[in-house]
């Protein structure tokens, strides 16, 4: 009995007087540089310390036995050693390996322009796209200020690197959009159908894109929709061209958005003189509904549906018989549904599935003839991604498009329907954090053409410094000929081969990029006397520069882009190899934005220059050898942030071509070639004023 307290006493004394173990040493990187503020932890105890600025550390512990000593530091891999604390002192020389920093890792970037909030490699934010002066929040107009794209005010679409508008395809969450543009007026570009505010990110590929995307010969525009809105809000927009309302309702794990808009351009056309004589200025109704559901911590289901109707009628100058202007009318209705689901399966797999339906119907009069045209596309797609290593992945999937057109002119009717089925596989293989190789392939079968194709795609990225990267891409791209030719004949796939070399420097707040490319076209559709075939060909080569700086000017940023393009092709009705009318040799844009705090206003200015465009002059024996004068445009926007009725409001003004440059897109000649008419912008200048109000949020969320 007496022994117990004695033992206890002894134990206590022992515990107090137990010789402490002193642990000291250094933490160095594998290159030998000292690592400051590394955390040294004796696992499962409170004991430990931090390294000083020379990487040294020292602490004592009263623990005994074997323990794990863990050491960690920012931007280094956490590591540990075992220590035996039954010694008086331990000296450790610890080495740490740099951790993989995603921002400093090489990426696939040849040909790509990525935009989006906080995304790796993003050069423009979603807001940048929406607020670029002169674009009126139209994604397609904004992208025309980036390298690779031509300025086109008289034709809808993106003309990329010598490609026609039909060679650029738009994808909404991975699903192909057949009719991305509003109803078209002759000789005028129309806006994209989908609001820029639907999307959080945009990848604009001027070439060399992934095997996941098919049926695009020159360029792919990938739009990524936003996720759940933070709050329930109501948005009201009142512009000089129309009004819109939308209601976002946020539930715990889901959100519902319902929106409607009405646009009528007749008030604007009453003030700004138009090129055509409108009987009915464009008038558009549209409505949309969107539901998003976060199915789990990592899963997301989205469905979006929209319906729109547009009506236009006008008289166009008749160059052959000036006394009889040509009548044109168009009634368009469009329905579009897009639904996607994504979920991670375990730690290594991701599933993406999607469905989309697009139907666009046009009907109207062309002079006295009645025409109808219906384009339809149904697209289903499934992709599985397997992640391995720290950064690498392997994806494979399949998709099918049911696409077609039916059209009629008075009593004549024709049409075609095609089922294009595709499989693809692709891997992004990170050989090191500085070297990535993408290998991919895509195979397609067209039931209408009764032909197969197999397209290899490859891309290489090499980090040449902390902030610089060199990239190369090669790919083969197939596309079905345009609907207007397919309704006439079963043809073959058109082909383009892209070779791209890029060098870029990405510093915080500053991006520089230079890209050179060569593109070879084969099997282009050619109109022969009384026949169509795939004997067309062509090439495009060029150099592009991009510089963005948001660091130098406080509250301001600007970017400059320049494209040099040398292209010739022999396609459609060309008698020979020639530079097409949609290719200007030099294109440059400067876009500048400045937020002025005192007056709470963002001012934006965009200047665009393009050298003269080729046009066909029947009096010149050399085909397409005449050039228009160069294109110049200076556009301004003002966004004034304020509160109306205590609700956050933006007052908005956008003025295109403020200095009134006389721009000419080309010329249309009379049948006898004796007189001609200039193809001009819809109006010399353009002005939109309005306000956007957000109810239910103290901050601007649109």
């Amino acid at each position, binding site marked *: 009995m007496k022994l117990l307290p004695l033992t206890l006493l002894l134990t206590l004394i022992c515990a107090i007087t137990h010789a402490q173990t002193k642990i000291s040493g250094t933490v160095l990187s594998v290159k030998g540089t000292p690592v400051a503020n590394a955390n040294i932890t004796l696992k499962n105890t409170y004991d430990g310390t*931090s390294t000083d600025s020379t990487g040294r550390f020292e602490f004592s512990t009263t623990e005994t036995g074997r323990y794990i000593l863990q050491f960690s530091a920012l931007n280094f891999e956490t590591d540990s050693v075992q220590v035996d604390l039954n010694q008086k002192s331990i000296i450790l020389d610890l080495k740490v390996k740099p951790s993989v920093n995603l921002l400093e890792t090489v990426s696939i970037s040849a040909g790509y322009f990525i935009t989006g909030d906080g995304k790796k490699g993003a050069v423009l934010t979603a807001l940048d796209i929406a607020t670029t002066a002169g674009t009126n929040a139209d994604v397609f107009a904004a992208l025309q200020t980036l390298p690779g794209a031509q300025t086109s005010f008289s034709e809808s679409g993106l003309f990329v690197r010598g490609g026609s508008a039909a060679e650029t395809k738009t994808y909404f969450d991975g699903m192909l959009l057949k009719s991305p543009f509003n109803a078209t007026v002759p000789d005028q570009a129309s806006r994209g159908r989908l609001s820029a505010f639907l999307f959080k990110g945009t990848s604009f590929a001027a070439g060399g894109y992934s095997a996941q995307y098919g049926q695009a010969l020159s360029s792919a525009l990938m739009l990524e929709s936003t996720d759940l809105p933070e709050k329930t809000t109501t948005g009201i927009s009142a512009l000089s061209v129309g009004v819109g309302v939308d209601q976002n309702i946020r539930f715990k794990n889901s959100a519902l958005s319902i929106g409607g808009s009405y646009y009528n351009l007749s008030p604007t056309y009453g003030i700004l003189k138009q090129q055509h004589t409108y009987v009915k200025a464009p008038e558009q109704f549209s409505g949309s509904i969107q539901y998003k559901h976060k199915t789990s911590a990592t899963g997301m289901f989205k469905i979006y549906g929209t319906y729109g109707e547009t009506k236009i009628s006008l008289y166009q100058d008749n160059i052959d018989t000036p006394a009889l202007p040509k009548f044109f009318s168009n009634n368009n209705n469009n329905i579009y549904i897009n639904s996607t689901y994504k979920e991670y399966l375990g730690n290594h797999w991701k599933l993406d599935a999607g469905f989309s339906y697009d139907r666009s119907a046009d009907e109207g009069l062309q002079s006295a003839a009645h025409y109808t045209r219906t384009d339809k596309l149904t697209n289903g797609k499934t992709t599985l991604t397997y992640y391995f290593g720290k950064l690498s992945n392997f994806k494979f999937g399949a998709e099918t498009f049911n696409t077609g057109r039916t059209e009629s002119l008075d009593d004549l009717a024709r049409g075609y329907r095609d089922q294009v089925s595709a499989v693809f596989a692709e891997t992004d293989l990170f050989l090191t954090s500085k070297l990535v190789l993408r290998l991919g392939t895509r195979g397609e079968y067209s039931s209408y053409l009764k032909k197969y194709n197999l397209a290899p795609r490859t891309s290489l990225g090499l980090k040449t410094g902390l902030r610089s990267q060199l990239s190369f891409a090669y790919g083969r791209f197939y596309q079905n000929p345009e609907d207007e030719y397919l309704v006439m004949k079963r043809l073959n796939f058109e082909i383009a081969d892209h070779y791209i070399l890029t060098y870029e420097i990405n510093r915080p707040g500053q991006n520089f990029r230079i890209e050179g490319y060569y593109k070879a076209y084969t099997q282009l559709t050619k109109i022969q006397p009384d026949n169509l075939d795939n004997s067309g060909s062509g090439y495009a080569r060029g150099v592009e520069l991009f510089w963005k700086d948001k660091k130098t000017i406080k509250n301001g*940023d600007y970017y400059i882009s320049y494209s040099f393009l040398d292209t010739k092709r022999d396609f459609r009705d060309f008698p020979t190899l020639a530079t097409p009318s949609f290719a200007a040799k030099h294109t440059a844009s400067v876009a500048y934005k400045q937020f002025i705090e005192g007056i709470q206003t963002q001012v934006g200015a965009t200047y665009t220059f393009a050298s003269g465009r080729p046009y066909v002059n029947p009096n010149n024996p050399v085909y397409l050898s005449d050039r228009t004068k160069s294109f110049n445009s200076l556009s301004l926007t003002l966004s004034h942030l304020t509160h109306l009725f205590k609700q956050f409001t933006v007052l908005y003004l956008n003025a295109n071509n403020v200095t009134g440059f006389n721009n000419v897109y080309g010329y249309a000649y009379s049948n006898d070639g004796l007189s001609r008419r200039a193809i001009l912008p819809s109006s010399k200048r353009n002005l939109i004023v309005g306000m956007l109000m957000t109810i239910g949020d103290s901050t601007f969320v649109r």
Partner: protein
Amino acid sequence: MKQLTKSFILMLMFFSLNSFAQNSDGKFQTGVKKGLEILKSSRVSDDFLKVSNYFERIAQAEPKEWLPPYYAAYGELLAGLTISDKALQDQYFDKALLAIDQANNLSAENSEIFALKGYIQFMKMSIDPQARLSFMSAAAASLGKAKALDPDNPRIYLINGQNTFYTPEAFGGGKAKAKPILENAVTKFAIFKPSSTIAPTWGSDRAEELLAQCN
């Protein structure tokens, strides 16, 4: 002699029990208190990183306590606020967000955690406001949650007031708007009673300092 031995044993037993108690409960309290002392004397970014490291060590030894990762996040946030290199700031704030999420996993529906999270998210946004507007609404959502959980938490009003103070007037901020929020914060700080000696109490001085700048 026997009596003496008995009382000696009793005394020893008492001591040992006491020391045992200190080892489980007291050790944690003392540990956190020691960390808060270091925090008090910290001035520069490196000091705050060491505080964060200290609480990270307690966090790994006490995997069920939310205060260590909470204070680790707070230290990381202050380390970011006291350095001018934006790239480093961004990394510190990212670490702070990870730590605060760790705290949230240990103590769900905790007003203090959501308040601090709102603070960090706002600072994430401030690094590149134009590109990170989404953090603005995330910060507002976190602070809203914090308020719903405990409307008497004075730090919510300090952080809200501070965020408003530093938001340009055009985006719904400014001194005039911040003033009533900060006044409310000062009032709430005056009557605030922390739930324990180691629970968060910071912010009262900052609220008064900012309020003075509003006048």
